[in-house]
């Protein structure tokens, strides 16, 4: 289901090809790394909200590399993810937050408050 959703989002055939390639690399990870990576990937899909395909592919590629590296070095899952997997997931996503939908809302909020506070930055008092 996530794959379908992502394919409508991700535009070009080249991106689709890369996306499938990265997903295949996740599936090829030995356990327990595969389960950890898939659980995080699922969370990214809900939380991420990254709009453009290029950023998404870059993120996924870096993510897969992190786990392949962990497998090669024999680094335990917990040492990669830390005590709080949610915290890790959020930190990881933040590195790619340049083009998230929420950024548009951040700009909008700043503009609205600028306008409310007046151009000179001083509040108008009644």
């Amino acid at each position: 289901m996530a794959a379908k959703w992502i394919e409508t989002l991700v535009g070009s055939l080249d991106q689709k090809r890369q996306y499938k390639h990265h997903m295949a690399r996740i599936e090829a990870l030995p356990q327990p790394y595969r389960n950890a990576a898939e659980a995080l990937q699922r969370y990214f899909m809900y939380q991420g909200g990254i709009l453009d395909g290029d950023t998404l592919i870059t993120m996924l590629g870096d993510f897969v590399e992190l786990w392949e590296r962990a497998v090669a070095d024999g680094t335990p899952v917990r040492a990669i993810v830390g005590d709080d997997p949610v915290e890790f997931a959020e930190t990881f996503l933040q590195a790619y937050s340049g083009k998230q939908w929420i950024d548009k809302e951040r700009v909008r909020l700043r503009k609205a408050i600028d306008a409310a506070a007046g151009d000179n930055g001083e509040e108008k008092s009644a």
Partner: protein
Amino acid sequence: MGNQMTEMLKGTLEGIVLAILARRSAYGYEITAWLRDRGFSDIAEGTIYALLVRVEQRGFVDVEKVPSAKGPPRKVYSLNAKGREQLAEFWRTWSVLAERIEQLHHNDNQHNEGA
């Protein structure tokens, strides 16, 4: 490491990593190992990895992919001119912050002794 330590470290971790890279180029695992050796025992490798991704995207480091015997190539990070500027800014900010907090600490101690 306690929760307060983790929270406080969050804002300074980027500066710490840039400072490590100012000494010499390194890959993610080396940086994590270095931090663990020096008492930052609870730092997850993934957190450092994400931080390195971020400083790379902000243009503070140059990255070289070095083949490794096992697994994908290792990304070796080195601080560039923009990164050194950022690090200098971090140290300036740190000095101001540390001084002000120490002052609070000092005043607080005096107050307690006087009471």
